[in-house]
């Protein structure tokens, strides 16, 4: 395994800019690593080595010519397969979009390419981002590099596993109810959901438009901040994009000073149903922050108890409406068009064949919640709960600069354990989805390994809208103190993956 693979994105970029190593060497090392381990991990759905090497050589040429390059230029990256990029398929982990090539780049993609990042390929995900384990991918599950018999989280399990398996130093995820943060927690990596509107949704295949948000995934806090800086900011092509300066996340990540910060522990996000090792590592992380000069208080957000119910009405409602676009007419799969069937029959057959079980479950729940006679009782009530959750956050943020909780109640579970038990699967999002409903910024940072099973635990930090920098300040403080305690990064303790020689 090449020594370059363990470097941070910041170190790789500095080395490329200084001519110590070329982007081509770095890219080739990562492509070799993918070749060697991805048959087992299955973090990627599509890899285009030629394209990546070409992009890498373009950065190297710029550096050689003395032209200025961006702070992450030449660094390889994996892009979640829900964001469009010309010249590569975008499948969203669905049979519906097998081999579909989008005609335009997502804004996030465009910014990455303009900043000189080298896209290695598209990462695996639960179908249309519906799931917490990546088992709902039509192309087979991703495996957790810490224990390949276990789930890597979801829906962005591919993006998280690619980092933990050292297949890429940076990846992009999207977070509708926890799809960046929960995979980060169970793989011992960093994942940030920016404030809703902080990153553009243009070219992101929509799951739930009022909740979806792209964000950075990385192995270190500074790397995540540098990537955040590249992809964030106002985009006229997304009408919900916030027209304001991006919070200074990079400075915050370099500082890590939490002295005098007020940190609120959310009483409702803990206790019964939480694994002992998760609670233990979370409590230790809070004590650590307190030791670094933060003021820790307990806060109560009683409406969070209703978040799961509200979320699993709002999200399927929006999803059932958004996924109506997969009608077999303009893009993707078409089944049964034999000249005898009507458009509607073809549509019905295509959606039957193209969607997996979880997508069907959610579309039908959403159809139910939006149907006449039930709209007020379900969708309307859920939207009111959303108001209450926002109020709880507002009240808590009057007393605290940030809130903290475990990211997810358990460590990664064995593949297959929850596939036919949707409710058990949904509970993995218990702590993450209030921030999607309220739109504030939130992130997951490694907190250590649970003593009972030796598997990763994440701590979640939540900040008010457009105070994303506070996430990085707290994350950097934790990372610094914990790395010192552990004697190195958490991922140094990951078991070696068997490499297949090419």
């Amino acid at each position, binding site marked *: 395994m090449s020594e370059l693979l363990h470097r941070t994105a910041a170190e790789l970029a500095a080395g490329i800019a200084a001519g110590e190593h070329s982007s081509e060497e770095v890219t080739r090392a990562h492509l070799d690593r993918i070749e060697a381990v991805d048959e087992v991990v299955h973090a990627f759905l599509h890899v285009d080595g030629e394209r990546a090497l070409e992009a890498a050589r373009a950065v190297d040429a710029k550096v050689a010519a003395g032209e200025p390059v961006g702070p992450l230029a030449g660094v390889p990256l994996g892009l979640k397969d829900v964001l469009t990029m010309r010249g590569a398929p975008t499948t969203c982990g669905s049979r519906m979009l097998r081999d579909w090539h989008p005609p335009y780049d997502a804004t996030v993609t465009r910014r990455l390419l303009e900043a000189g990042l080298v896209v290695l390929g598209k990462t695996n995900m639960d179908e249309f981002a519906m799931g917490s384990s990546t088992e709902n991918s039509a192309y087979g599950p991703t495996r957790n590099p810490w224990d390949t018999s276990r789930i890597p989280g979801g829906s962005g399990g591919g993006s998280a596993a690619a980092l933990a398996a050292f297949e890429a130093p940076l990846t992009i995820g999207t977070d509708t109810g926890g799809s960046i943060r929960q995979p980060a927690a169970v793989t011992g990596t960093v994942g940030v959901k920016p404030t809703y509107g902080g990153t553009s949704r243009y070219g992101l295949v929509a799951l739930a438009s009022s909740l979806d948000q792209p964000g950075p995934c990385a192995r270190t806090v500074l790397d995540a901040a540098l990537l955040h800086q590249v992809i964030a900011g106002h985009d006229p092509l997304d009408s919900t994009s916030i027209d304001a300066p991006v919070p200074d996340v990079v400075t915050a990540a370099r500082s890590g000073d939490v002295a005098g910060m007020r940190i609120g522990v959310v009483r409702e996000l803990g206790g019964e149903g939480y694994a002992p090792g998760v609670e233990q590592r979370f409590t230790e992380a809070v004590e650590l922050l307190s030791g670094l000069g933060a003021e820790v208080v307990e806060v109560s957000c009683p409406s969070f108890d209703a978040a799961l119910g509200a979320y699993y009405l709002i999200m399927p409602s929006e999803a059932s409406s958004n996924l109506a676009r997969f009608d077999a007419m303009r893009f993707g799969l078409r089944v049964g068009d034999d000249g005898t069937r009507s458009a509607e029959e073809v549509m019905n057959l295509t959606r039957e064949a193209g969607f997996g079980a979880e997508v069907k479950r959610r579309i*039908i729940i959403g159809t139910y919640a939006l149907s006449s006679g039930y709209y007020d009782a379900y969708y309307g009530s859920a939207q009111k709960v959303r108001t209450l959750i926002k109020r709880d956050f507002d009240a808590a943020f009057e007393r605290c600069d940030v809130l903290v909780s475990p990211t997810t109640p358990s460590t990664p579970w064995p593949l297959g354990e929850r596939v036919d038990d949707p409710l058990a699967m949904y509970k993995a999002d218990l702590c993450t989805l209030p921030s999607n409903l309220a739109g504030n910024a939130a992130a997951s940072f490694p907190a250590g390994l649970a003593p009972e099973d030796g598997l990763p635990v994440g701590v979640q930090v939540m900040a008010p809208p457009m105070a994303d920098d506070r996430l990085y300040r707290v994350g950097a403080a934790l990372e610094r103190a914990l790395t010192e305690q552990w004697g190195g990064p958490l991922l140094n303790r990951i078991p070696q993956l068997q490499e297949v020689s090419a």
Partner: protein
Amino acid sequence: MALTTDDVARLAKLARIELSEAELEHLAPQLDVILESVASVQQVAGPDIEPTSHALPLTNVFREDEVRPSLPREDVLAGAPAAEEERFRVPRILGEEA
């Protein structure tokens, strides 16, 4: 409440998804459990609480009504399941009796 297979069949029809009998049998109890568990949201907020549709306040976004190049036709049609004469080709949309 108890969601029956007939209910699921009706919803699937509304959602334009053909479901087999086996799938209906499999899905109905799962959907019933989900709906039961989310039903409690009805008891949480009183009538005086305003609904929230979006996390942050939204304002209408306008731009100048100017002509801009659109995506090239061939790029768009390249991803279509069927195309003919520079258009999307679709199955018949009217019934035989129409």
